[in-house]
């Protein structure tokens, strides 16, 4: 069991380290794509709140009407204990 635990932890660390500590790309291969800069002092957007609260358990829903989104969010506010602020921001994101 200990060997299995160590092996699983090793695999997990290897996978994480490839993402977290990836070597910087050489100048020749760097792609100059615009990046979204997240300012932590600015209130999170609806999309960020969706990813932080909802996206950690499930994928975004397929197309829903604004009335359906409202019902789903009321349901999830109770289930996932969303704050009122999160609920409103995600509602605006999913049903602008």
């Amino acid at each position, binding site marked *: *069991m200990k060997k*299995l*635990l160590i092996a*699983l932890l090793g*695999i*997990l660390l290897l*996978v*994480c380290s490839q*993402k*977290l500590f990836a070597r910087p790309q050489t100048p020749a291969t760097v792609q100059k794509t615009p990046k979204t800069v997240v300012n*932590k002092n600015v*209130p*999170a957007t609806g999309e960020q*709140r969706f*990813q*932080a*609260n909802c*996206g*950690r*358990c*499930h*994928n975004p*829903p*397929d197309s*829903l*009407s604004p*009335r*359906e989104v*409202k*019902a*789903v969010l*009321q*349901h999830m*506010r*109770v*289930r*996932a*204990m*969303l*704050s*009122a*602020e*999160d609920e409103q921001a995600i509602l605006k994101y999913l049903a602008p």
Partner: protein
Amino acid sequence: MNRVWGMLFALLCAATGLSAQSDVPILSGALAFQGTSSGGANSFQPIIFPVLAAPLGDHWLVEARGEVQGFIARQNGNSGPYNGQFVPSFAYLQVDYIADSHVTVTVGRFLTPFNTYNERFPLWIANLVDQPIIFPIGTRTSASSNGGMVRGVALSRSKWNLTYAAYASVSTTTENLQSGRAAGGRLGIFLPQNGVEVGASYQRFLQTGGSNVAGTYFAWQPPPIPLDVRAEYAHSPGGQGYWIEGAYRFASSRDMNTWPTRLQAVARVQQYFKGNPTPMDFLPATNVNQFDFGLNYYLPHNVRLNGSYGRQYSPALNANIWNFEVTYRFLFPAWPGAHK
């Protein structure tokens, strides 16, 4: 069975009649088919989970989740003809009053809020088919409670949320609606920018002499990488244990149109240490060590395939556990024409 369907239909009719014009009751849930081979004993489980959510204005919500679960297995475990039975039940049937941004009052039958697995990981969200070994700790007798609950976000800041739930439940022996006499609560802190959540749970079980049950949980979804790490620990007089689970998507993009983003690898390790068994605690009679490894593939149209292999080590039996599951998740308005 008829009672479950009857209650669901009555709820649907009531919600339809009472709901204001701007509120749309929704019917969601999942259809699933599971195949399991545990120590050579094969079983199959077709399951349907209808979920109804009917908002009544901005403050009231009626929610219900029924479960009709079939279990088809050989008569003598490894031999004999296959026999099947279907067991209907209600996971929850509750009325919520969302008082303000901090308090929601719930009355009726609700999922027992002990740690996070019971409330947040129905089969269409759980990464592995099998529930953790320690799942019965804090959730007996049926994972649901009949009574009242207060819950919500006590404090909400840009960098953290403090959440709570407190409940009391009465003993119910009615078929499909069983619950234990218990009281308890949960407190958690969520750091959305770091994707970290930690919390603790407590339950005082007030039957069979009374006992204290406690647990703690941890979740981490680091925003830059598609990794999902979760762990729970629970302790009861009957035994204690923990599980740690990691799930990884093979691409960081959230675009679900490529196969690497649809593929997810999952691994879970768990250990259980038996204590002094109490009647009806639904816990193993011996110490158990188990690991599971699985692959999930998310097909279009909310269909998911799960396959997993696990190995269980215990003084009673060492066994291989194979699981396969197809899940279809659905969501649509409870009456035609509301999808606009």
